């Protein structure tokens, strides 16, 4: 379980997080959605002990990330936004180092490495040097590495950024599979469809503050079911309808060119913050 109360973080004069309050239950897949610079990565860095917070409290399974950081770090695995693998070492060596950092004994470590490489479908790459892996395989290896010490909480910071659509979907399937094994997943993303597809609950983050927390369905239902986009000279106007017939009637009654689509989380984000996520 993740618990955050009145969390603040200030970098010199910039307030990166403002009174963030949040509780993520065991086994939940929780997504933090927001544009670049909203404070998503800062939150993950604080929760994983990489950054100190300015005030408030944050704990993982009851262990405070500030006062009991060694214990709290044992509870979680982290897949950061940027690739942080040892490029000159092999897949097996990278995983072995992680296992040693988490005090796993040799027998347990080697067994778990084999299991996880099988899990992420990389058994045939065990001795491959990381520098020879593709971007997608590196991401899968980072996920395997974060799971090696069997954490109950997994932090994924923009896990599919920079990957093509096909590989992204493979990673999504892997994330779902991890959640089905009971792991709590805390995900940050600025991909709307990623949050919609994966998350049990979503928090919208804007300028370091949480705007709203709810299920993706509830957030989208507030807007309606169908959206009509009309391109204006220098802007895009969007109208929302609960009924498809209503939307089609509107198109028929106007001469303009419209695009009809289903409402998504971006619409909810736009309506609450006045800006787009991506």
């Amino acid at each position: 379980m993740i618990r955050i109360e009145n969390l603040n973080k200030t970098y010199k004069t910039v307030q990166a997080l403002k009174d963030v309050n949040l509780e993520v239950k065991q086994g939940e897949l929780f997504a933090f959605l927001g544009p670049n610079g909203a404070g998503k990565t800062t939150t993950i860095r604080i929760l994983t002990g990489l950054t100190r917070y300015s005030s408030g409290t944050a704990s993982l399974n009851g262990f405070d990330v500030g006062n009991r950081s060694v214990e709290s770090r044992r509870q979680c695995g982290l897949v950061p936004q940027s690739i942080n693998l040892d490029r000159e070492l092999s897949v097996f060596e990278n995983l072995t180092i992680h296992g040693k950092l988490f005090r796993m004994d040799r027998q347990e470590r080697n067994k778990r490495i084999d299991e996880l490489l099988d899990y992420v479908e990389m058994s045939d790459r065990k001795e491959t040097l990381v520098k020879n892996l593709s971007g997608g395989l590196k991401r899968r290896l980072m996920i395997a590495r974060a799971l090696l010490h069997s954490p109950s909480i997994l932090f994924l910071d923009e896990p599919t950024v920079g990957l093509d659509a096909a590989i992204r979907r493979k990673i999504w399937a892997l994330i779902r599979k991890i959640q089905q094994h009971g792991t709590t997943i805390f995900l940050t993303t600025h991909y709307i469809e990623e949050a919609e597809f994966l998350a049990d609950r979503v928090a919208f983050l804007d300028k370091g503050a949480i705007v709203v927390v709810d299920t993706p369905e509830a957030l989208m239902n507030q807007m309606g079911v169908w959206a009509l986009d009309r391109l204006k000279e220098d802007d895009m106007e969007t109208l929302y309808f609960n009924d498809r017939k209503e939307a089609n009637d509107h198109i028929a009654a106007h001469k303009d060119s419209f695009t009809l689509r289903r409402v998504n989380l971006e619409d909810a984000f736009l309506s609450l913050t006045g800006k787009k996520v991506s």
Partner: protein
Amino acid sequence: MIYGASAVYYREILILRRRLTRLIPSWCVSPLLYLIAFGFAMGKHVTLDGHTYMEFLLPGLIAMTSMTQAFAISSEINIARFYWNIFEEIQAAPVSDISYVAGEVLAGMTRAFLAILVVLVLGFLFGVVLSLNPWFWLAIVLNSFLFASLAVGIAMLVKSHADQSLMTSFVITPMAFLGGTFFPLENFPVWAQKIIYFLPLTHAAGAIRTAAFGNRPSFVSLMILAIIGLLFFCVSVWCVKRAKD
């Protein structure tokens, strides 16, 4: 603490092993040039306290090599920190700051020892045989511990890889030339000798040279190296803590 330190050390040793075939030739270049230029060409007819210049020079080169190679761990840490973001992987693990510093310092010392073995082999090929007694190795352990500890602290303080090379230019290079590596300190003016006395390499070069000639090195020099080394180690632990933003 031991588990964390051994994991950090294991990582550095894996990388070192992978690069060893490239590193060994690079460790030969500088000592070889100094032995040829200073030992053969310039010091052929020079004797100092009953020893040939080559015999005088080799312990100095050993002190210098243990300093530069132990300090070189700072570049490895910087690359891992600024380019590959691997420092984050270690920070996110349940490894204490003291364990991290201990692992990196041990890795720096290992690197220094391997480079010293190369220098000893080169010296042997040039016909110089030193007394490799326990005092000799103790002085090397203390010197490499001191500079590896300094390296970890500096690696945490600098903001970029360019800053790192500035530190080498302003700290390591002057010490290499002024710390009694190439000529006796008595050749300096008295005021300069007083300043040079405060350089750790002066004590390391003196202790290593005395031991290499079969004598017992100055207890004061060994104590100075141990105390400064411990001080740098503690400062490095503080710097690692401070490296969190």
